[in-house]
């Protein structure tokens, strides 16, 4: 009965892996989990996942049980056992009935699963989009550019790597790409959609639970594909409006002498060639808009927490944190660097 014992050890070994694995997932401080739905879309998909898991687990256990019984029940033989060659002639009616039954059962299972998928698809497409917020999201190599569209051009503003959305209000994304294919994916909120150069895709979602949800680029896009994250901060509509209003303001005039010096260093040095800060002469669009850098909680698309010493080290040598990123190193004299960081800190 060696094979009976071996199947039992197999089952035990596997079960311990599943348990160990499941406990680990819950401990994630990130909010980046496809099962913990924070919006209707992710909820529909999580529901579909449960249906699928149930049906597939049942089929899997059924097949494994049938296999185990077949192995345990059948008499043992060895290479000398005469082969049952007249089985070819024999009408194995009960066996063919069993196989036909099994095939019909699995076809029925597939039909059920297909219907569940179509139902979920229609539910996803059916979300009402009245009063939606429009955002144009453009993927760049290794950061996200978000432009909050508005019928009135003056109300339009753009930010990077951190999106605030009002809770309960639909958001319609227009997805573009400026270089290679990226994929916009915030698992707690919805599935992913690719940003493809030469194509404009639309993608709509809604967040119902307030909170900060982390997403990551899901289509391999180069050296720093691993550090191209974004945060979606869902907050109450009035809080969102205050945030949006602040985002529309240009950068405040620096008061203290060192912040003034920091701004001059910014404008006279290489920063202004790529970054834009509205309210100053810097208006290049090739890198993230820094007008409200200090209001964001992370630096470099979710790679570093937004703290002054991180900002200083990042400016000095970005390649240390994201090797291959398009930002060059800067050996500024210490007092210039400190002044620059101080000024950037004022850009709330």
């Amino acid at each position, binding site marked *: 009965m060696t094979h009976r014992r071996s199947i039992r050890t197999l089952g035990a070994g596997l079960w311990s892996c599943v348990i160990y694995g499941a406990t680990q997932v819950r401990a994630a401080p990130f909010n980046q989990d496809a099962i913990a739905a924070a919006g209707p879309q992710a909820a529909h998909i999580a529901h579909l996942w449960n249906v699928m898991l149930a049906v597939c687990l049942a089929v899997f256990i059924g097949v494994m049980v049938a296999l185990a019984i077949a192995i345990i029940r059948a008499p043992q033989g060895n290479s000398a056992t005469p082969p049952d060659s007249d089985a070819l002639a024999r009408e194995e009616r009960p066996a063919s009935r069993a196989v036909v039954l099994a095939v019909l059962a699995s076809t029925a299972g597939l039909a059920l699963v*297909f219907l569940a998928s179509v139902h979920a698809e229609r539910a996803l497409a059916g979300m009402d989009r009245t009063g939606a917020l429009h955002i144009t999201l453009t993927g760049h190599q290794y950061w996200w550019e978000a432009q909050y569209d508005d019928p009135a051009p003056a109300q339009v503003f753009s930010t990077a790597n951190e999106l605030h959305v009002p809770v309960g209000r639909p958001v319609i994304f227009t997805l573009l790409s400026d270089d290679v294919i990226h994929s916009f994916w915030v698992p707690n909120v919805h599935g992913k959609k690719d940003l493809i150069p030469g194509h404009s895709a639309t993608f709509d979602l809604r967040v119902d639970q307030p909170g900060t949800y982390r997403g990551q680029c899901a289509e391999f896009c180069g050296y720093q594909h691993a550090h191209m994250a974004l945060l979606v901060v869902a907050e109450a509509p009035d809080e969102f409006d205050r945030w949006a209003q602040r985002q529309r303001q240009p950068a405040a005039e620096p008061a203290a002498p060192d912040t003034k010096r920091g701004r001059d260093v910014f404008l006279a040095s290489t920063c202004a060639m790529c970054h834009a800060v509205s309210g100053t002469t810097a208006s290049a669009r090739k890198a993230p808009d820094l007008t409200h850098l200090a209001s964001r909680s992370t630096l470099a698309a979710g790679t570093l927490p937004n703290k002054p010493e991180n900002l200083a080290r990042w400016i000095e040598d970005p390649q240390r944190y994201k090797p291959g990123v398009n930002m060059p190193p800067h050996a500024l004299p210490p007092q210039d660097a400190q002044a620059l960081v101080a000024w950037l800190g004022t850009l709330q």
Partner: protein
Amino acid sequence: MSDATIPVGALDGARRSDDAAEDSGWAGPGGLVGWLGTIDHKRIGRRFIVTAFLFFAAGGFLAALMRLQLAVPDSGFIGPDRYNQIFSTHGTIMMFLFAVPIGQAMAVYLVPLMVGARAIAFPRMVAFAYWVYLFGGVMLLVALVLNIGPDAGWFSYVPLAGPQFGIGKRSDFWAQLITFTEVSGLMVAVSIIATTLKMRAPGMSLDRVPLFVWAMVVTSTMILFAMPAVMLASTMLITDRLVGTHVFNAAEGGDPLLWQHLFWFFAHPEVYFIFIPGLAIVSSIVATFARRPVFGYPAVVLSLIATGFLAFGLWVHHMFATNVPELGKSFFTAASMAIAIPTAIQLFCWITTLWHGRINLKTPLYYVLGFFFVLTLGGLTGIMLAAVPLDLQVHDTYFVVAHLHYVLIGGAVFPLLGGVVYWFPKIIGRTMDERLGRLSFWLFFIGFNVTFFPMHILGLAGMPRRVYTYAGESGWGPLNMMSSIGALMIAASLLLYVFNVVRGALQGPSAGVDPWGGGTLEWSTASPPPAHNFDAMPVVGGREPLWESNGIAGSVVNLGMKDREVLITSVVEAKPHHRELFPCATTWPFFTAIGTTILFIASIFTPWAVVWGSPLVALLATCWWWPSLAEARRHREVEVPSQ
């Protein structure tokens, strides 16, 4: 050639005797020239199998590096550029240099033996195919060592692999490797189809062809219609990068999605012609170790053919996250789910075979049981991925990495490891150790599940694919560590497996003609078989020739050995039609392969290489074909004109 004219006589009626085996034309010259120029499908097949497993080891080593890098968060073990080259080369080696060629290598060795033929069709072309495959694989490994390994993933999406963002010559080396493996794959496919349709033993009508051979023919036919798509796509990628065509340039009327359509139109059938040879091996092992023919032969054959057709209608399920129209996607959901049915039918037939059989639980059957467990789980996650909404969550995450390894390692590697143990006695003449076999199975099975099962959970936990590192706060650390430990277990089990192979080859007990009591023709000849395969060419009387009373219903005699005569039979009924005089051993295929390699590698650097390289290859191929006066004179002497 109507039935009446087939010269069937009594045993004593035969006039002249066969040439003795010694001065047979099949053995070919010895030494290096004989080794380089052999036309013996068994020598080429053995060499093909060993080379494919060496590439498997190289790919496995790269996988181990990846797992070491991902074992802990924010690890500095490998930088992003090196990691991108390693995961791209790992994928490329495993898919193009191991999974597809190993199925073909097993077919090159076994199909002629199973259909009762004296040789494989177009033996020199198969030799050329092997050399081109070897040189392509070596080129890729040298490129990786020289820091020019592909770095845009094994499917090399444009524009990241395109002219602007695919920096340097890396994507060109990837695209040119495709050209090498396609040329090799297509040639072997054509020769397997020709061998099976035209060179079967008399009496082996289509309903007596072994399931292994059916699966290999379906695989080869799929190869014929799938590989052109990636040949066209990789050629267009090279022309885009080298001479500035705009096929994938969105600004000038091209489209990056066109690359995905062309690539996946090939790559989905590809994963099926990696997986169907696995089913072929399972059919052979289940029959022999359940001591009875596989239940529902017609059902299994029709399922294989249905899988072959359906595989061409699913490719868009790799592109659900792009903005392909929604209605199209649900069609592909239905098709992706429907293809599970033929595989389910085969699964149920095998389980019924075991149910009504007498189980001889040896190592090959252990691997088949491992196959059932892992493939069923992988197939079910595949059905989950077929649903568009769910795919949007798990596409390009570690859930997909888990699924693809469950179906590919489960579908192809498990049966393959079992198949090597099963046919090792026939190929080498000695048997492998049973106890070591089981130990390496259990280590592999548990190591596999410990490595890849946690990846399902990681995928749902939001870990995207192809990241060279991840943050500590992501919480993915422990599961990644578990996967890495599992990967080391897999490495240990494969080392044990290799040890078992080497020990078996050197000191294993001699195997004899039929150690497992198999029913197909390869078990009716010596181990390892002589150069001419069968001393007496069998006439087949049933589906399991060695098991049925009238299984071998006579012989073919007077099939000349000196002139390498091969019996050509009709397609459906396998009635003898005529003899063909096969070519002699020649090293021209080897030199033509070298010329082709020079042409392919040089055309990475300059388009003029095609202009000057093609005449070189044409010249070498002409020397290969050019008939020798002696051979033509000899053929005119023995020639019997057709009516």
